[in-house]
């Protein structure tokens, strides 16, 4: 890894932490809180690519695990990492990696559709596959029940996919990084 790649990895880990400082928006009717922080893995994967994007989220999670209150709402430490939502934490790193892989694959012909599909696949399908499995084990419920329970959060995620797609395409025009990496 070149020095610049390490810097990118560190910057996106820090960006993910900063996104956690934005106050969560509570969705009308359902009352589900939507935090900006989960945009971090989507952006890291879509802008830095698989390797750097995945590593930046791993780095962020390491800092959370060692006791820095970087998660949205000032949470951190081992309790949140291995607690109920732990699967979503580890899932973030995988989801950034998968989004990065897909965006790299589509890079030369990236448009709104394949960018949004890549981000939705990595950021929703992959993320919830891992997160729900974890919840199912911890809460001793079936996988299907965990999936139903997570459904209200999908509204927020759909909004985040839209934001990450727009940001990814805008940044690709202004400051492309993935093609430079080759």
């Amino acid at each position: 890894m070149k020095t610049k790649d390490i810097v990118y990895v560190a910057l996106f880990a820090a960006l993910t932490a900063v996104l956690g400082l934005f106050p969560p928006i509570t969705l009308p009717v359902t009352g589900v809180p939507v935090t900006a922080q989960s945009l971090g893995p989507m952006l890291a994967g879509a802008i830095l690519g698989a390797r750097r994007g995945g590593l930046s989220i791993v780095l962020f999670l390491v800092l959370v695990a060692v006791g820095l209150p970087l998660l949205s709402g000032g949470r951190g430490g081992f309790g949140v990492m291995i607690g109920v939502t732990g699967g979503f934490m580890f899932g973030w790193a995988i989801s950034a990696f998968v989004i990065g892989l897909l965006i790299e694959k589509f890079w030369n012909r990236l448009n709104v559709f394949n960018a949004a599909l890549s981000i939705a696949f990595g950021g929703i399908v992959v993320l919830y596959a891992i997160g729900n499995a974890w919840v199912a084990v911890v809460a001793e419920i079936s996988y299907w029940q965990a999936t139903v329970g997570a459904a209200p959060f999908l509204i927020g995620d759909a909004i985040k996919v839209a934001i990450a797609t727009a940001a990814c395409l805008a940044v690709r025009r202004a400051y492309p990084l993935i093609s430079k990496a080759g």
Partner: protein
Amino acid sequence: MIAGLYIHGQSALHRAAAGAKILAMVALGTGVFLIPDWPVVAFVLATVLLLYPVSGFGPRIMWAQIKPILWLLVIFFAVQLWLNDWQAGLLVITRIAAIVMFASLVTLTTKTSDLLASLERAMQPLRPIGVNPEKVSLAISMVLRFIPVISTVASEIRDAQRARGLDRSIIAMVVPLIIRTLKMADDVADAIDARSFD
């Protein structure tokens, strides 16, 4: 510098080695999943809770650890009550509470710097497969430095977009934030290379 969640103290747990506490946490986490009886898990939870006053933490700190997941525990208990019985519900929630309370205790009694030092030691054997502990340490220090910088940039952009009436647009916030962050990377990488890091 961001303050960690560590709370200073002199107890035996505070003095225990970071690596030992992490191993104990992994062992407890695995152990409670192997125990199928709620009274045994409840006993484990009670022991963990007892460690809080022993380590010098009052009820206020204990409450702060469990509060964020309390609503989930209530839901999980209700779901088990509906699907199975109250014993199954108690098993699920005592198990989660035991793991979370012990893991939080490890975080409260271990300095971030000690955990980072054990992490760096634990990474040494990974050197042959391409993990460079010095580079990881560099990345960690950079994140800690960049958080306040990016946070300042974020509030500058927010002010600028408010002046344009765009303060409700998330895209108008996120895109300049990313581009300014990426631009920063060029200068920082040059500065590091100029000091012959590698």
